Structures are given as C-alpha cells and as structure tokens.
C-alpha cells in the first residue's frame, strides 16, 4: 500500500523541525504509528518532517528521575537498566509493544502522539505520573500524561507542536507493574492495567492506578486508588478496588463486537488484581 503523496524534509535540530513544519505537516520519527495510518489512508499529511536523526531527541538519562527523549525506541526503553530500576512497569510495557521489529524502530514520542487507546506505554505513563515535554514555535511547555491524553486518538498537542520527550519520577522505591489482556491476534491490549504502589511495611501508603485498552484513552482511577491506599492489599481491599475501577472507567469505556464494553469493564477489575499481585509478588 502506498500512502498519499507528501513532501519530505529532514530536520537536524528541534529548531529546524519547528521552522520546517507546515500547517498540514506531521513529524515523522520511527514512523511505526504514522506510516500504517497513512498507508490505510486514514490520514494524508501533505508534508512529513523527519525528526528521526535529531541527536538531542534520543536517549535516556537518569538524574533523580528519568528523562526519555521522544525518539527513543521501545526496545531502548525496555532494555534500559535505568528504566528497569526506576520504572520497571514502563520497561515492561514498552517490551510488550508489537514485536521486536516494531520495538526496534517505533518511538515513545510517536506512540504517545498517536494516542492509540490499546497501546501499552500510555497506561503506565498515566499511572506513574509522567510529564510530557513539548516544544512549539512559542516556546516549551509541559503537561501531565493524565492531561495529555484527551480522547480517542486525541491529545493535548497543538498543530506545529513537537513532543521532545517525557519525564518520570523515580519509582524505584515503589512496586509497579503493567499487566494486560492481549488480543489473541493483534496482541494489543483488550485491557491493560498499570499500578504503582508505595508500601510502608505491610501497608499500601499510596496507590496509583491507570487503565487502558478498555477505554478510549488511558484513564487514572481515583476510586481504585482510594480503595487500595491504607490497606494491607488484602482480599477485601482488592475486591473493593476491582469494583471501584469499574466506576472509574465507566464514562470512557470502548468495546467492539468480540469484546464489548461490559466485558472489558469486568476484566479491568480482574487485571487490576493481577497487576497488584505482580507488583507485590
């Protein structure tokens, strides 16, 4: 399949990329979300500005927290010692994206710009309190992952703005996990649940929970978090959280003929329990 015709330009720096981008242009990094969409003619930008070789957009640095450049690949994140130590759930989620060929070239910035509701990393970014760093013609700004994902394939990104990277707090003293129910054919998440638990002895001092796959976007789940916090994560607390998460995601549910909304809603509770078990196991 051939995409529609477009003009191609390669940028050597963020400033050059921002100056090159036109009104109907898109940034191209790995292309593993954008090109499939263009081949299916679901989108037809008239210009692509290739940011894949901009040195300052790539790489992972650990300074108290994590900073990950927008063109860092899923494989680089999944296999990074720093990410595995500071946010193991993100390493796990990035290691579950697509397959090795996709992970070798697909980038985290492209992934979140695309905002596929069934993708894995966004759910972890919302649960673990990531910040998305954005550069536009008018300067730089940052937005929380929770506010970045607005709706189905819809983000807070304005025309002409470029994701430069993301920042994550150091979760190495948390117990975090990402667990998904993969679609049997595509391996996309039918339901994906990320948890980040701060334990104080046997008590869960703080719980952060997000759900994706079942919903039009990754959703932070305050009800489930409240049901887990202050408990020993005993069966009663897990049952309460599994009930609460269903309410948390109710207004954002999405389904299809094989996996309807009600089924995914129920599975969110099941996979929340599994995520807690994996995080604390």
């Amino acid at each position, binding site marked *: 399949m051939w995409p529609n*015709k477009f003009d191609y330009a390669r940028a050597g720096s963020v400033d050059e990329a921002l100056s090159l981008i036109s009104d109907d242009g898109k940034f191209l990094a790995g*292309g*593993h979300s954008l*090109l*499939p969409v263009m*081949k299916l003619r679901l989108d037809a930008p008239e210009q692509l500005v*290739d940011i894949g070789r901009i040195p300052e957009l790539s790489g992972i640095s650990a300074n108290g927290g994590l900073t990950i450049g927008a063109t860092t690949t899923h494989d680089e994140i999944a296999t990074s010692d720093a990410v595995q130590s500071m946010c193991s759930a993100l390493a796990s989620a990035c290691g579950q994206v697509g397959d090795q060929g*996709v992970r070798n*070239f697909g980038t985290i910035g492209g992934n979140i710009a695309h905002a596929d509701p069934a993708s894995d990393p966004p759910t972890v970014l919302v649960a673990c309190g990531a910040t998305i760093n954005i550069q536009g013609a008018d300067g730089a700004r940052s937005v929380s992952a929770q506010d970045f994902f607005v709706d189905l394939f819809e983000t807070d990104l304005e025309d002409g703005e470029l994701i430069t990277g993301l920042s994550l707090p150091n979760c190495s003293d948390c117990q975090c996990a990402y667990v998904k129910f993969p679609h049997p054919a595509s391996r996309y998440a039918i339901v994906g649940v990320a948890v980040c638990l701060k334990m104080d002895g046997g008590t869960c001092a703080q719980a952060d929970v997000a759900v994706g796959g079942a919903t039009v976007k990754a959703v932070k789940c305050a009800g489930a978090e409240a049901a887990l916090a202050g408990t020993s994560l005993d069966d009663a607390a897990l049952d309460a959280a599994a009930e609460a998460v269903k309410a948390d995601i109710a207004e954002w549910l999405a389904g299809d003929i094989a996996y309807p909304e009600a089924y995914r809603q129920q599975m969110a509770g099941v996979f929340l329990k599994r995520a807690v078990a994996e995080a604390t196991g």
Partner: protein
Amino acid sequence: MQVSITVNGVVHECDVDPRTLLVHFLREELDLTGTKIGCDTSQCGACTVHLDGKVLKSCTLLAAQADGAAVTTIEGLSENGEHHPMQTSFWENHGLQCGYCTPGMIMASAAFARDNPGASEAEIRHYLEGNICRCTGYHNIVKAVKQVADAAAAT
C-alpha cells in the same frame, strides 16, 4: 528525492518518490524480490530485513528514512557462496511449507540467534511472534532456529 542506501554491501544511489517504502525500494527499484509483502500492516513479518543489523519490517519504513543506512536482505545473507547457518538449518529441518514467510522468518531468526545464543524453545516462539506462517508450519521453523541457537552456544 535522492537516497543512498547500501543493500547487501552495494551502494545504491536512487531518485525516489518520498512515499516509497523500503520494501518497494528493494523489490521494485532493485528487483530484490526475496523480501515479500504479506499483510502490509507490520504484523506478518514477510518483509523482514536488517537495517544496520536490526530486524525491521520494511513495509513500515520509508526509503528516505533508510538513506545512508546499510540494509541486508535474504539475498545478502549468504557469504562466499555458502548459505548462512540459518538458511542451512531451515533446509535441513524443512522449516517451511509454502515458503512465502520463509525469507522474513530467516531474517528475523538469524538476528535472534546472533543475539541470543542458547535460546530456549519458549524464547524462540515468543521472539517469532512478529512473523506469521499461514501454513502454521511453526514446529520445524522453531526446530531450525533452535539448532542454530544451540550451535552458537556451543562455540
């Protein structure tokens, strides 16, 4: 636009439409039709090649993105007229039925065995999730990969 791509050790300078995917470039510009187009949606792996040594689904990258890079296709895997060990192993274990997925399977497997000597059958099966054999001939494919991975661990 002008691109310069090294394919199987030979530099190719070509003028391409920017929307040319790498797999089109290989098959239609260079006539290297060993690389197949299967699903054309980055799922089946029939178009798998190596880009700078990494496994890539060549239906999901523009030739423009490969400008300056080195690509290896199934045609470039043998050395000095000798089959690559993975090609030999697919032959010996009959790791194919219709053969359409075979170039992609071999390209993916060759990179995997290079990076994971001694890999277990479970690891091989998990790794090959990105390559689909519609004949469902996985048993002998996995056997073929295991033979090379075991041999790599033994040396």
